[in-house]
C-alpha cells in the first residue's frame, strides 16, 4: 500500500509540473504505447505551453498505423486570466456548494434519509466547476455517470431539487423516480445521471451527432471515470465520433479507482488521455484538482471544438474523498494517500490563488462559507418537507 501511495504521489507531482503531455505513438500503436510515453514531451503549463499536442493525422484515409505526432490544432489560452472576478467567485462558490451538498448527503445517507446507491464527488469539484463553467448551456449538453450531484449543480439544477430527489420526493428534479444516480434537467441541458458504467458515452456521442446534424454550434461534454475506459461502449463511441467528427469532449475523471480496483490494475494504458490515439483523437491530461488549469484547457478546447467539430479526450486527474459509494469504506487506499490529496484540495487551492491575486480576502471567503452553509441547510430543510410522489405516479412516464 505504501508503494502504491508513493506511486500516486509521484504521478501527482509529475502532473503538477507537467500538466500537459503530448500524445503520440510509434509504428505499432498498441505495443509501443509505453515506449512512446518514455519519450513524451513534458511541458510546463506555467512556461506558456502554447498549444495542445495532437495525434490527429492530416488525412483520414491512410491505412498506415503509424500515429504521427503533429503540431496541435488547439490553441491554449489563459482564459482564467481574462475571466472576471465575479465569474471566479461564482465558480469558487459553486465548488463550495458542491462540497457542502456532498457532505450533507453523506450525513443524511448515514441517517438513512437517502437510500440506495449514493456516489459522492467531494474532492472532484474543480472538474465540475471548471469544465461546465466553460460551456454555453443554451446550446451545449452535459451527460455523466452516477456520480452526478456536482455536475447537476454546476448545470444549474437547484440544491433544493437535488436534495428532494435524493430523498425521493415529488419535488425532486426527476420527480423522485431517479434518485441519486439519475438527476436530470432538460431545462438545463443536463441529460443525466447514468447508472451503467460507460453507458452515457454512446448516448453523449449521439447528442453530439444531433448537434452536428442540426448544424448547431454546440458541444457535448461527456464525463466518466477511469473505470469506464475498459467498456466496449467507450471504444465504439470514440471510433464513431472520430469517423463522423462529432463535437463531443470526453472527460475522464480519473480518480484512480474504478470502485475498489486501482486504475493500473484495470488499464493497460498508463496515461489515459492517450486512449483515444488508436482512433486519432486528440487528447490531453489536466490537473483536475486545479480549477485554473482545468478551466483554461477546457475553455480552449470548447472554443476549438465549437469552431471545428471533432471529438477530444481529456483526462482530468482528480480524487474522491469518500469511497466509491456510501457503502464503501475505501480500505484499498491509505490514509496518507487521501491526506496527500487533501493537501491539494481544489477549493483550498483556488482560495489561495484568489487571495494571492487580490481578488478575495480571508473574510470574504469566510462569509461565502457561511452563506453557502446556510443555503444548503435551507435547501435541505425545504426538500425534507416536500411530499412523496402520489401512488398514481408509479404508472406515469412509462411511455408517452
Amino acid at each position, binding site marked *: 500500500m505504501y508503494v502504491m501511495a508513493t506511486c500516486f504521489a509521484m504521478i501527482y507531482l509529475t502532473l503538477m509540473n507537467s500538466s500537459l503531455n503530448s500524445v503520440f505513438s510509434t509504428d505499432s500503436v498498441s505495443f509501443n504505447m509505453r515506449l512512446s510515453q518514455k519519450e513524451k514531451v513534458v511541458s510546463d503549463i506555467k512556461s506558456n505551453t502554447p498549444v495542445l499536442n495532437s495525434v490527429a493525422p492530416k488525412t483520414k484515409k491512410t491505412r498506415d498505423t503509424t500515429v504521427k505526432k503533429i503540431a496541435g490544432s488547439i490553441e491554449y489560452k489563459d482564459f482564467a486570466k481574462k475571466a472576471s472576478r465575479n465569474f471566479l467567485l461564482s465558480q469558487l462558490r459553486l465548488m463550495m456548494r458542491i462540497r457542502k451538498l456532498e457532505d450533507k448527503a453523506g450525513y443524511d445517507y448515514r441517517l438513512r434519509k437517502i437510500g440506495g446507491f449514493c456516489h459522492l464527488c467531494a474532492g472532484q469539484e474543480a472538474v465540475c466547476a471548471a469544465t461546465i463553467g466553460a460551456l454555453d448551456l443554451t446550446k451545449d449538453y452535459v451527460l455523466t455517470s452516477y456520480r452526478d450531484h456536482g455536475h447537476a449543480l454546476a448545470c444549474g439544477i437547484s440544491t433544493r431539487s437535488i436534495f428532494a430527489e435524493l430523498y425521493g420526493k415529488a419535488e425532486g428534479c426527476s420527480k423522485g423516480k431517479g434518485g441519486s444516480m439519475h438527476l436530470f434537467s432538460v431545462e438545463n441541458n443536463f441529460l443525466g445521471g447514468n447508472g451503467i458504467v460507460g453507458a452515457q458515452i454512446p448516448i453523449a*456521442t449521439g447528442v453530439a451527432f*444531433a448537434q452536428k446534424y*442540426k448544424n448547431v454550434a454546440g458541444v457535448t461534454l461527456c464525463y466518466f471515470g477511469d473505470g469506464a475506459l475498459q467498456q466496449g461502449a467507450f471504444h465504439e463511441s470514440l471510433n464513431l465520433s472520430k469517423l463522423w467528427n462529432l463535437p463531443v469532449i470526453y472527460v475522464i475523471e480519473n480518480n484512480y479507482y474504478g470502485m475498489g480496483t486501482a486504475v493500473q490494475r484495470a488499464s493497460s494504458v498508463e496515461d489515459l488521455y492517450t486512449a483515444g490515439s488508436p482512433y486519432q483523437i486528440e487528447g490531453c491530461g489536466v490537473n483536475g484538482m486545479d480549477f485554473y488549469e482545468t478551466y483554461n484547457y477546457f475553455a480552449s478546447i470548447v472554443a476549438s471544438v465549437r469552431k471545428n467539430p471533432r471529438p477530444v479526450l481529456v483526462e482530468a486527474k482528480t480524487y474522491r474523498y469518500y469511497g466509491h459509494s456510501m457503502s464503501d469504506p475505501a480500505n484499498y487506499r491509505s490514509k496518507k494517500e487521501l491526506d496527500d490529496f487533501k493537501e491539494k484540495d481544489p477549493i483550498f487551492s483556488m482560495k489561495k490563488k484568489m487571495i494571492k491575486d487580490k481578488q478575495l480576502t480571508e473574510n470574504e471567503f469566510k462569509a461565502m462559507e457561511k452563506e453557502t452553509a446556510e443555503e444548503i441547510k435551507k435547501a435541505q430543510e425545504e426538500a425534507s418537507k416536500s411530499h412523496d410522489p402520489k401512488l398514481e405516479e408509479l404508472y406515469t412516464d412509462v411511455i*408517452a
Partner: protein
Amino acid sequence: MPEITIRESLNQALQEEMKRDKNVFLIGEEVAEYNGAYKVSKGLLDIFGKERVLDTPIAELGFTGLGVGAALAGLRPVVEWMTFNFALLAMDQVVNNAAKLRYMSGGQLSCPIVFRGPNGPAEYLSSQHSQALQSYFVHCPGLVVIAPATAYDYKGLLKSAIRSDDPVIFLESELAYNWKGEVPEEEYLVEIGKADIKREGSDISVICHSKTLQYAVEAADILEKEGIMVEIVDLRTLRPLDYDAIAQTVRKTNRAVVVDESWPMCSVGSYVSHHISSHLFDFLDAPVQLISSEDVPMPYNHSLELAAQPSSQKIISAIRKIL
C-alpha cells in the same frame, strides 16, 4: 390496389417519413452504399444523401446508443439492426436507456427512436442467426413492440412507429420480405396498439402475430373445408397489447390457440395464454393451447429446423385437441 412486397412497403414507409420530417434519419450496418443487407433501404442513400442514411461500423452497442442520444436531442432515428440476433449486443442501450429514460427523468425526456430489422426463424442458419427474440423486448416496460404480418400493416405501422414519441422495437420477419400484399397508393397509417381480425370465425380463435399469421391462414383454409370456422386475430402490436381484442374474440368463440415463434418459457405466447386463462376463464370451454417454437436452439438441418417451429399442421392439431 397495387400488390407489393413487404420489403417494398417498408422502403415506401421510410421514404415517405424521411420526406415528411427532416429529423428522421436511417443508421445501421450496410444501410447506405450496400442498400441494406436485406435491401429494405434500397435507393435511400441516393434520395436523401449520406447525412441522413449512414453506414456504421459493426458496433451495435455504439451506434444503438448513438441513436438513443440523437433521439434525446430532438432527432427521430431509425436504427437498423442487420438482424435482431445482433441486437443482443446493444441490449444495454435498449433496456437500460431507451426504455427507462422517460421514467427515470420523471417524464422530462422522450426517446423517439425506431429499432428495426429482421427477426425470427430463417432457413439453414443454425442457432445464432435464426431466433425469435420478441419476448426479450416485450418483457421491458418503456418499449413499444410491433410485429406486423402483412405488407399493408408493415407500412402503416412503420410510419406510425417513426412518428411515435416512444422507443419502438419493430420486428420484421426475415423470411417474409418477399411476400406480397395489397398496399394503397394513397397515404395511410395503422394505429399502434390495435390488433386486427384477419379472418372472422365462430368456432375457435387463433391469436397470432408476425409471419405465423400465414400458418394460421393455411390451417383455417384446411379446417374450413370441414366446416370449422376459425377466427384469426393478428396482434400486430405486442406492447402495448390489445387486451380488448383478445377479450372480444375469446368471448365470441370460447376457445383459443395462441401462436408465437418465441420459445415457450416467459414468452409473448405464454403471457397471452396466461392472460386469457386468468382473466377470461369464465368464457372458456377448453384450456388455452400454446403453439410456440420447441424449447431448443435452432438446428441447421432443414427437417429439424422446420420441426422446431410453429406450423399450420401444429395449429390444426391444437385446434382439433380442444374442439
